[in-house]
């Protein structure tokens, strides 16, 4: 009898203690959440291609005493999340089409250009090729049975720009049947870096960040629609820092960061 009682007690003790601890944790979390709504960080939605440069900008911004959270994903994903009511304060779009749709739906206010980008052709750094002239047949030669790595040409912005560029350069027919379309431009970069694809079309900013690839050609900016990054405050957002951060994004110090990362300056008339 005595043993039974002891055993029961000791067996109940552990789960009871666990329950109390869990309860305490829940309470403290609820408490901190309550505290946060009083002064929550600015929430920025940004395209994945801006990951490193926005990291640097964020550091500078938060050093001034502000708080900011950034959510990185593909523009389409972020746009759909916004449509579904995500509580973002600011939205940076890498895709003009999505920007127009969101603005038309009244989800974004007063967009502003913050940066531009260029397309480049890259090869694996192990390759002996140093440059590629953009003549007809050049791409086919360079591929030599391999595939051209690009982001998905119908949907992902980087892919759409690549298709537009190749088409206007007269290289689309030879490239069309030899594509390896990836889920995003980073994956295309990775294919070239690993040597799986002998050639790839990526952003200049991506090429800079990857030591295992070499740029062999700059795609003329006139061959495709302007690659622009637009920032806009989200309609209905009430964060006090929103306007200030918008100003910061277009400030000279921010532009210096963008330039350093390989982005181009936004031109008011769209040319760059």
């Amino acid at each position, binding site marked *: 009898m005595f043993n039974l009682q002891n055993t029961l007690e000791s067996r109940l003790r552990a789960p009871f203690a666990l329950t109390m601890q869990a309860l305490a944790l829940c309470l403290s979390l609820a408490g901190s959440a309550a505290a946060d709504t009083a002064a929550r960080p600015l929430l920025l939605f940004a395209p994945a291609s801006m990951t490193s440069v926005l990291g640097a900008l964020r550091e500078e911004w938060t050093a001034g005493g502000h708080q900011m959270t950034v959510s990185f994903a*593909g523009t*389409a994903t972020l*746009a*759909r999340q916004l449509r579904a009511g995500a509580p973002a304060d600011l939205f940076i779009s890498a895709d003009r*089409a*999505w920007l127009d*749709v969101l603005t038309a739906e009244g989800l974004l206010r007063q967009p502003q250009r913050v940066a531009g980008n260029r397309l480049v052709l890259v090869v694996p750094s192990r390759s002996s090729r140093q440059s590629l002239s953009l003549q007809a047949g050049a791409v086919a030669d360079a591929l030599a049975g*391999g*595939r051209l*790595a690009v982001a*998905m040409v*119908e*949907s*992902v912005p980087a892919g759409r720009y690549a298709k537009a560029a190749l088409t206007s350069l007269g290289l689309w027919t030879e490239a069309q049947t030899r*594509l*390896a*379309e*990836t*889920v995003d431009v980073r*994956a295309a970069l990775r*294919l070239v870096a*690993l*040597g*799986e694809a002998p050639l790839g079309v990526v952003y200049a900013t991506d090429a800079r960040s990857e030591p295992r690839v070499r740029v062999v050609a700059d795609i003329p900016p006139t061959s495709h629609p302007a690659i622009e990054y637009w920032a806009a405050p989200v309609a209905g957002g009430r964060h006090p820092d929103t306007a200030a951060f918008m100003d910061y994004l277009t400030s000279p110090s921010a532009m210096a960061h963008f330039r350093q990362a390989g982005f181009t300056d936004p031109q008011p008339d769209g040319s760059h």
Partner: protein
Amino acid sequence: MTIFTPDELTTIQLSLKVSAWATLVSLPPGIAVAWVLARREFPGKWLLDVLIHLPLVMPPVVTGYLLLMAFGRQGPLGIWLETTLGFTFAFNWTGAALACGIMGFPLLVRSVRLSIESVNRGLEQAANTLGANPAWVVVRVTLPLALPGILAGAVLCFAKALGEFGATITFVSNIPGLTQTLPGAIYNSIQLPEGEAAALRLTGVAIALSMGALLVSEWLTRRLRKREGQAR
């Protein structure tokens, strides 16, 4: 079929082809591994169990990346297969089938293992006493009795293969006609603001195909059960 564009039809056909091959090729090794896990004890058995379950717990993109490193054009296994057997996975539907098969493999093994474990070992003993060697016992007693579980596992594998995206696109990228499966096409569609209609159409197809596989499996299982319990 005017509901779907020719490209979409190609995608659906390719998805079916990839998933079917992934399942068929996974079955023999899947059954073998499940049998070993169910009926044998040996040092390091836990390690085999963990390895089998890795694709289930790792992020699919990681699995795809590992496949790329091993079986890609520059990967050691990829190079060996190409030079010795003239066979490529990279940027080919075979690679998609490999990725889908690997992702579905743990589900197959789990289901088959449970099924084999539930086969009465006394029946296997009886077969032994009647002169059947261990191989015959597996073929004529264990596996036939485990068939419902094998079917369920195959269906799970097929359904997983139909829905597999991350590993596939990371390994063999998205090449319409060669490696663009249903999920890839759906992803492609939802990237565009106006792509919802296409996405929904294709999603409907994916659901219909999975349900079809499930129904076939149910029907087959019921027939098996009936055969076992005649005149009950």
